[in-house]
């Protein structure tokens, strides 16, 4: 009887080789592949390689089991006894549990990826709102400044009624500046704040609708998975 181990052979490529392989980088100005796609491809090949190694191993074990069965059938006369021995049953159970564990891991990973996406989106959204608000406030300030400056200039240029002292004129100019500045600023701020509030309400409304839709979808399509709801972060 000949047995072949699946990695006895010398000088054969192993998955480990794929994980550790490095290529020299082409010199500047020379044509070459982009690194990332090559790495991604090598990783995919590695995954497939490992799968093949495992399939080969389980086929080898199956062959061994069948051999034992045939041999036993030839000598003892009862092939049923070795059809599925205790050791085979254990390995079988281990494989079933492994599959279940891998499934559970995938559920958790999916849930985590989902939660990660949601928080990331919220973060981006927040950054966006903040930077918009910043830009807007810069713009309002700029505009208020320029209008107030105009008002002050106008006030300064008004023909002085009688010869009032310069201080009073300056104070008036200052007053006009401040009044206009504050008016413009307040009006803009109110409009902008209302705009943001409307945006938030809209956002909340949309989110509620999405949640309802998702919940509905789960009710309809995934009734069999209710038991798994407790899994997840």
């Amino acid at each position: 009887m000949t047995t072949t181990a699946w990695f006895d052979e010398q000088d054969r490529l192993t998955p480990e080789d794929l994980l550790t392989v490095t290529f020299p980088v082409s010199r500047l100005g020379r044509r070459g592949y982009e690194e990332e796609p090559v790495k991604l491809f090598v990783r995919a090949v590695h995954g497939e390689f490992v799968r093949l190694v495992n399939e080969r191993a389980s086929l080898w074990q199956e062959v061994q089991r069948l051999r034992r069965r045939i041999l036993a059938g030839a000598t003892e006369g009862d092939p049923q006894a070795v059809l599925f021995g205790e050791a085979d049953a254990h390995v079988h159970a281990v494989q079933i549990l492994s599959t279940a564990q891998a499934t559970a891991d995938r559920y958790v990973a999916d849930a985590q990826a989902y939660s990660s996406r949601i928080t990331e989106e919220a973060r981006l959204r927040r950054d966006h709102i903040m930077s918009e608000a910043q830009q807007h406030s810069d713009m309002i300030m700029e505009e208020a400044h320029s209008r107030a400056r105009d008002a002050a200039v106008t006030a300064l240029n008004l023909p002085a009624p009688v010869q009032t002292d310069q201080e009073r004129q300056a104070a008036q100019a200052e007053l006009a500046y401040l009044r206009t500045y504050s008016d413009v600023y307040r009006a803009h701020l109110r409009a902008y704040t209302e705009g943001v509030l409307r945006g938030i309400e809209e956002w909340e409304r949309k989110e509620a609708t999405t949640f309802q839709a998702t919940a509905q979808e789960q009710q309809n399509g995934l009734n069999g998975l209710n038991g798994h709801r407790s899994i997840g972060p």
Partner: protein
Amino acid sequence: MDVVRLRESFARVTNHGDELPLFFYSDLFIKHPEVRDMFPVSMTTQRGRFVNALMKIVSQVDRIDELTVFLQGLGRDHRKFGAVVEHYDAVRSSLLATLEHFSGPAWTPELAADWHEAYDLIGTVMLAAATEDEKLRPAFWRGTVVSHERRAFDVSVLFVRPEPRLDYLPGQSVSIECPSRPRLWRFYSMANAPRPDGLLEFHIRLIDGGAVSMALTSDAIVDTDLRLGPPVGVLTLDQPPSGRDLLLVAGSTGLAPLKAILDQVTTMPQPPRVQLFFGARDTDGLYDLDSLEKMAAQHPWLTVTPAVSGQPKFDGETGTLPEVMARNGDWSRHDAYLAGPTEMVEEAVTRLDSAGVPRHQIHIEDFGWSEP
């Protein structure tokens, strides 16, 4: 024990990838269902750690001194999971069954004997360290969250009261398990030196999709009883003091261990000069700047430099933290302490290296056996 044979056999079985640890844990859980509860629902991370630990052990099995330190840490660290003597035998049996399964025809009685011997060595060292540790401290501490303060959009500061009192070196960390995320332990650094009232300060940054950080940054965490593992970490001041001035470089919540060190420096009779760089993407991320500036106003030996990398309009240093650090001085005669995102720390180390700062003056965290 034939080390070459052991390594060859291990290299062979690792070609089966994730199937190897998957088989190991399934075998263990079928033979000892009660052990399953010691692990989290998702085993992905756990399997990675298991294979990494095995790789390290197999690669160093003939350098017993280095390996012993690693295994002692591993043994002590397993106390908080509730590991006891019986578990070591259960693991031996499942490990051998797994190796046999994947070795196929290459599995010989001699190889089995090699692995038995190797495992004896591993188990003995781990158990001895665990037993020794048991005399000194509990397997884990109970830590009640007494306050929670949201300092930024994604950063919260917690105060935790441990029971019994937990002593540690400023700069060290503990792993935290929170009741709503059972069996998921994450490392966090204390942000204060041990205080008379024993309270521990933690800075928690919300990581997108991070199960534990999400629970810890929620308001609902107040009054919760956490579990705290034993203090670990090497990001601590030299003993006896080196006499050199300090350079502290903190990215985001990497500030925590460095603030603990700062806290320790304030109690020194002759404090060294300290230059602290505190960086974040934007001003929001400089969540603790107020309290740092207050400290700087009180202590003439302390200079605090905030820096932001992603906000052009900032009245201060802009750019990545390592850039800002590098252009702000000659650090060759300082002790440098770096903490923050891995990339930032690595870049800072590279810059200090090329600026001629000797390696032994550069301190970074290294959890060794357990990922932070």
